[in-house]
């Protein structure tokens, strides 16, 4: 069974730039990708590159959970979509860092951290849809309670199997620990 191309365990690219923690290419449709064994107190900031295909017949959000807390209502997110000259925005009681309509592909960069008082936060930018329908999306999220460290991150689709084959994730850390 092929899990995808893996090149992980802290490849140090050079001083003063991001350090790759792990990369995953999804080889069959799945619902979540867990990165475990993290140490946010050492890394300070993580950066996640993601390109996701939603192969299902339903639109799906993609939650960014921390430390195994998969209760959506323990997080809030604020997003804005810029679609041509229209702008949509909302705040929701869940940590959707990304969204994809049925069959749609996207690309995102999400910066993740824990603030000085211990609140898990992320901010992301990306785009989705194709050609003349391309839209810009900005997202920001925060957990309702504090955490003492970031030890794991999970990207989980709200619809089963919405992380399609060929989806790719690369996680970087900003600081060598």
């Amino acid at each position, binding site marked *: 069974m092929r899990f995808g191309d893996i090149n992980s365990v802290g490849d140090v690219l050079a001083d003063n730039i991001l350090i790759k923690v792990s990369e995953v290419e999804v080889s069959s449709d799945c619902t979540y990708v867990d990165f475990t*064994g993290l140490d946010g107190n050492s890394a300070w900031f993580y950066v996640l590159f993601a390109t996701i295909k939603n192969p299902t017949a339903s639109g799906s959000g993609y939650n960014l959970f921390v430390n195994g807390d998969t209760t959506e209502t323990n997080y809030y997110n604020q997003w804005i979509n810029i679609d041509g000259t229209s702008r*949509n925005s909302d705040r929701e009681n869940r940590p959707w860092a990304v969204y994809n309509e*049925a069959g749609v592909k996207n690309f995102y960069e999400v910066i993740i951290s824990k603030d000085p008082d211990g609140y898990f936060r992320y901010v992301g930018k990306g785009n989705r849809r194709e050609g003349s329908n391309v839209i810009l999306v900005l997202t920001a999220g925060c957990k309702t309670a504090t955490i003492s460290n970031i030890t794991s991150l999970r990207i989980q689709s709200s619809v089963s199997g919405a992380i399609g084959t060929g989806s790719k994730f690369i996680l970087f850390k900003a600081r060598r620990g």
Partner: protein
Amino acid sequence: MKIKGLRVDVRTGKVEEVFEEISDEEYQKRLEEAKKAEEEMKIRELIEAKKREILERLAKEELTKEGKIEGGLNGEKSRRQKKI
């Protein structure tokens, strides 16, 4: 129902396929929430498009009344442009 995931241990580089059991009720709940969110997004987009259309029409009417434009943005010249 079992949902499939990938677990990546960044310390060892090991990636494994893992499964979590969720109840049919939970599965249906998630599906319904996703459908509801999709519907809300479509409605929001339609509302925003309509709001923009209405605002643009009103703005053009006001600017025309004020004599600043003659008919709008679609290829028709403003009074200032015509003078030039």
